[in-house]
């Protein structure tokens, strides 16, 4: 049976970008205030709180800014999939009967540049970092390079993906990067990790997002357009999957965790990829979005080359992807990124997306996250 017992009644966003002098918790506070106002509930009505952050050890300390109500507040973290986890845990608190109204919050404020840490945090030996291999970025270059070789994807398809992101960002008043770029500019920018150029990568940045959930039978009290949580899945990597931060890989290959998360989510929701009206796919880089189209069941490997040439993933196309500009135009505050996806899907499904609104009353939204150490999550929403 589809878990249709939980509804989203409000969302809030602190736009992603750079905010010198403003803390991650303060951005989270703004996002929560917006989400509460959207839901029409008071802070004191929140009965469970799940907050995710990479840089803030105790993001649940946000209660100090919002009001000390004694609400059970818990921190969650699953890398880039954190937003899906905080949302799922808030929904589960409702399903278990612990709360009628719960909130999922994501907030982060990253220093500039590529993520860096000691390899031991990912269970890897120190020499791996000393040798300059403990980096997520080069994985994305290696994965798309192999994918292009196997399935005939060309660099122009990567450039089309990035150009679409910046076009959508330009139509989104709350996006970080709002300047459209041509495919030529994107292709001619410097390689960061061959074959990916500078403008094919997202950057770590700052921001927050929040989502208020309620028992479905109470949702109509708060909103005339509740958005139902139809599926929520998360899988770690399997033996043989080509994943980031792998000093070696077995010869026998296995699909990415995205494939398993996607198939399980479709099954949970009782729908298929053909039913999805608008999607948010993890676009750490342009190559990731291209690969994730196939891994999430929206096309076969290699079909992206023609699909993107036809504009299939544009806002006016048959499957609009990353309608708010995605990670490429918004950057990635890791703890908040997944809830930005949910905010955008809810905005689209409620028909409030303004210049970037998907036409024809979209009913089903799909969100996908992928990141270290090889974790993928899928959330499916519907009206």
């Amino acid at each position: 049976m589809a878990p249709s017992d939980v509804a989203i009644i409000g969302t809030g966003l602190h736009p992603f970008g750079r905010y010198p002098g403003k803390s991650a918790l303060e951005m989270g506070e703004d996002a929560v205030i917006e989400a509460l106002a959207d839901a029409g509930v008071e802070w004191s009505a929140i009965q469970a709180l799940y907050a995710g952050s990479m840089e803030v050890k105790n993001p649940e300390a946000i209660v100090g800014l919002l009001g000390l109500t004694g609400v059970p507040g818990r921190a969650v973290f699953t890398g880039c999939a954190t937003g899906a986890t905080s949302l799922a845990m808030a929904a589960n608190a409702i399903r278990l009967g612990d709360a009628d109204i719960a909130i999922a919050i994501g907030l982060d404020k990253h220093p500039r540049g590529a993520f860096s840490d000691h390899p031991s945090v990912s269970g890897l030996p120190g020499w791996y970092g000393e040798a300059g291999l403990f980096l997520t970025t080069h994985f994305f270059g290696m994965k798309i390079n192999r994918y292009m070789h196997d399935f005939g994807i060309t660099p122009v398809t990567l450039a089309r993906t990035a150009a679409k992101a910046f076009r959508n960002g330009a139509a989104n008043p709350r996006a970080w990067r709002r300047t459209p770029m041509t495919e030529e500019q994107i292709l001619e920018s410097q390689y960061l990790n061959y074959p990916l150029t500078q403008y094919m990568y997202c950057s770590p940045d700052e921001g927050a997002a929040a989502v208020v959930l309620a028992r479905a039978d109470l949702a109509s009290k708060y909103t005339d357009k509740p958005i139902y949580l139809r599926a929520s899945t998360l899988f770690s990597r399997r033996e043989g999957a080509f994943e980031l931060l792998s000093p070696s890989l077995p010869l026998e290959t296995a699909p990415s965790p995205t494939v398993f998360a996607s198939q399980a989510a479709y099954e949970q929701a009782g729908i298929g990829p053909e039913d999805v009206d608008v999607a948010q796919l993890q676009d750490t880089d342009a190559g990731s979005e291209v690969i994730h189209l196939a891994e999430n069941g929206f096309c076969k490997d290699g079909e992206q080359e023609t699909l993107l040439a036809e504009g299939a993933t544009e806002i006016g196309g048959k499957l609009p992807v990353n309608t708010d500009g995605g990670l490429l135009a918004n950057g990635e505050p890791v703890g908040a990124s997944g809830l930005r996806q949910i905010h955008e899907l809810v905005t689209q499904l409620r028909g409030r997306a303004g210049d970037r609104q998907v036409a024809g009353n979209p009913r089903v939204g799909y969100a996908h996250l992928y990141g270290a150490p090889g974790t993928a999550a899928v959330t499916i929403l519907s009206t």
Partner: protein
Amino acid sequence: MAQQVPLAADLFTWPAEEPALIGGRSSDGKIVFPYRSHKLVGGVNEELERVELPRRGTLWTFTGQRFRPPSPPYAGDDTPKTFEPFAVGYVELPGALRVEARLTEADPDKLHIGQEMELRIVPFGTDADGNQTLIYAFAPVGAEEGHGDGSE
């Protein structure tokens, strides 16, 4: 006098006439790299057999690293000013596994998937005792030996 030492123990045989990467083999024939002493196999915590991995293989995929990795943890001898982009890839070692490694050829135009590659041990940085550290890398077969034997 300063010596040449592997960046970490158990990475590759050293000193050796023909150095090889060290893997660990379990009773089901599967190989892991880097070597570790034990692993759960079918519910049993098995001790792994130390094995030398093939020195030659084919390039499975690759990319270029154009920016200096954040330091720490990166411990190369270079500075943000002297950093030279390098390439990294997975080399498929027949019958064993695919190993992630630096490549001695940094120009992506001179690399292609399927290319024959061979192991090199190359100078990398300096450790706390002033010794020169060595790491493993792979070079296109037929590429000049250069300082690849670590004898620089």
